[in-house]
């Protein structure tokens, strides 16, 4: 490899011909025109320390507001002295995921099933209380914690349902196939915002009188059904990519449908569709923001609600930049992960 001085490389890249040179100048001016005021506002003229609005210099960002409201952005209106419960639930979830990822191959599946049985009810108990813990209503939940809660629990509904419907769509049984197709196309065809309205209005109506159902649970169920339809399509991709011979061989060995599916087909198909399923999970995280329309305040909802605080009028930009950055970091990290999975599979 010849060593090219980096300066001449850049000159070649940006000013190779008169036309590229002209484009470069235009673009650099454009970037400067946008970036310089932005950096001045966000960093140079910004106020980082202080406790009230009065500490903030005019013209720059007032990050004091984010510091003062940080707890709400993370936990919503969850009682301050109980926030440790959310932290423990988060740490347990993370520990569960990590233990599955780093477990030896032969233990992985058993461990994953154990985690799936133990963690979700444990998480709900920690967050909502009862059995010795103070009861905390879901209307007090909020912020990033709620965004993650809805995403995780909606996908706990969506993934098994999605797998079932993907199998149903591939089934040889005509009626089962038809029902699966109708289910998938219906949920994919309607807007998620309409589904959230639908769940919050219809679920209490179609259940026997007297059975109350929590409004957060309604939203999670609604989102879970929509994402299940999208997950089903992601899994279908994996099923279609799998050679038919795999199931035929399993059948030839004398395995029945469910054994062949569970032991031979699904493990391989899910591995293939994991990147697509991750992308659906990213879409789910982005769509949890819509619970705002039924007055459930996730991270974006809390950011929006904080604008109404009379002590901090006019902090729109700060609230949006902060919450937007968190969404971006989470989704970007997940999409990079999904892309690396895809690359690994291709090799």
């Amino acid at each position, binding site marked *: 490899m010849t060593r090219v001085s980096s300066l001449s490389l850049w000159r070649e890249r940006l000013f190779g011909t008169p036309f590229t040179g002209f484009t470069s100048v235009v673009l650099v001016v454009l970037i400067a025109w946008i970036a310089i005021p932005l950096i001045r506002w966000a960093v140079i003229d910004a106020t980082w320390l202080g406790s009230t609005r009065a500490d903030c210099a005019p013209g720059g960002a007032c990050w004091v507001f984010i510091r003062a409201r940080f707890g709400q952005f993370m936990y919503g209106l969850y009682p301050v002295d109980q926030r440790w419960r959310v932290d423990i639930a988060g740490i347990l979830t993370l520990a569960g995921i990590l233990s599955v990822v780093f477990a030896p191959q032969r233990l992985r599946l058993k461990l994953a099933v154990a985690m799936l049985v133990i963690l979700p009810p444990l998480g709900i108990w920690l967050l909502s209380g009862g059995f010795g813990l103070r009861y905390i209503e879901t209307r007090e939940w909020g912020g990033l914690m709620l965004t993650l809660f809805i995403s995780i629990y909606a996908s706990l509904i969506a993934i098994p349902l999605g797998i079932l419907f993907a199998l149903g769509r591939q089934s040889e049984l005509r009626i089962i196939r038809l029902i699966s197709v109708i289910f998938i196309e219906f949920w994919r065809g*309607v807007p998620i*915002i309409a589904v959230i309205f639908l769940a919050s209005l219809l679920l209490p109506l179609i259940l026997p009188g007297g059975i109350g159902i929590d409004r957060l649970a309604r939203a999670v169920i609604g989102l879970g059904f929509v994402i299940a339809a999208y997950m089903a399509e992601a899994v279908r991709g994996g099923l279609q990519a799998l050679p038919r011979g795999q199931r035929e061989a399993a059948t030839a060995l004398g395995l029945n449908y469910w054994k062949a599916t569970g032991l031979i087909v699904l493990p391989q198909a899910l591995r293939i569709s994991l990147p697509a399923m991750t992308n659906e999970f990213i879409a789910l995280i*982005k769509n949890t923001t819509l619970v705002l329309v039924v007055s459930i305040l996730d991270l974006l909802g809390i950011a929006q609600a904080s604008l109404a605080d009379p002590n901090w009028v006019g902090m729109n930009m700060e609230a949006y930049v902060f919450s937007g950055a968190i969404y971006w970091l989470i989704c970007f990290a997940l*999409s990079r992960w999904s892309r690396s999975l895809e690359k690994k599979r291709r090799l």
Partner: protein
Amino acid sequence: MNVLSFINDKRVRDWFYQIALIVLLVGLTVFFVRNASENMVKAGIASGFDFLWRTSGIEVPFVLTGYTQSDDIFALFWVGVANTMLVTVIAIALATLLGFAIGIARLSSHWLLSTIAGAYIEFVRNIPLLFFVLFWYFGVIAALPQPRQSISLFGVAFLNNRGITIPLPDAPGNFRWAALVILVSWVGYWLASAWARKRKERTGQDAPLLAIGLGLIVVVPALAIAWASLATRWDIPVLRGFNYRGGFVVIPEFVALLAALVTYTAGFIAEIVRGGIESVAKGQSEAASALGLRPGRILSLVVIPQALRVMTPPLTNQYLNVLKNSSFGAAIAYPDVVSLFMGSALNNTGQAIEIIAMTLAVYLVIGLAVSALMNWYNARIALVTR
């Protein structure tokens, strides 16, 4: 023995599973419907679609259909459908343009240009759409100047924090004629291209289709619109007191929703465009260039037609997403079908089941129509292997 072999027969078992599933679904439906009717009787809500003919009494700030508060609820429904369609169609058109531009910029050999395009794509794709809707509405448009300090666009349209005020023709008659002329000339082009294709199959001669197309698709409609605009008296907005009078006010909710839909969807379309163009084997453009085609013609005759085949199915999905995502306007009270019908009308009447069914039907019907149209187009451009 006989019974056992009957149970073990695969066909018998298959039917048993399917019938069991149907029984389960029917049972669940009956259970839900009974609960719903009991609950509705308890709440004193009558079922049925009679409520549609009641006077709505709901004021709507953005109406295209001539609806007023004293019309019935069914008319309100149509206002919502029209507003949903309006923002969807305009957003699809603009997002496609912007998406193609960014997608092609992403593939550019100019390092800075493709980096900026890539950064834009990574930025918008990883942030919720609702974020953009709220940001445009509360962050950008709310920060625009008061009507008195409006930003003037060529002295006829005015941008301020109450939206965009645009001129409106006094009488729409001339525009109706222009629309008719445009329709006729487009049908004419369609007939001409069919005739040219037949002639080419018969005689092998090319017709000057490009010139005809340019004339009938672009020049004639442009002339018709120019004539209509010049022959009409325009109601140009004028500043009186604290706000503009006259013209047509495009409400800020519309502007914010449109801006959010376009900037967000363009990021996804750009990736589809990039994927489509990259899927065309390099040898194709090399071969075309060896035949002596110029770069512009290589792109338009060789690369884009083949890329379109790859791009059409995911583009269809994006267009359907724009339709569904237009409902995000409900968060800022843009009067689309969800916020007018599922929101205001439902609150007034309490007819949850009927209203939800009608609203979902709107999306399913339009969605099916769009995918049928795009499937037809896809089948037309698909590679025919003989």
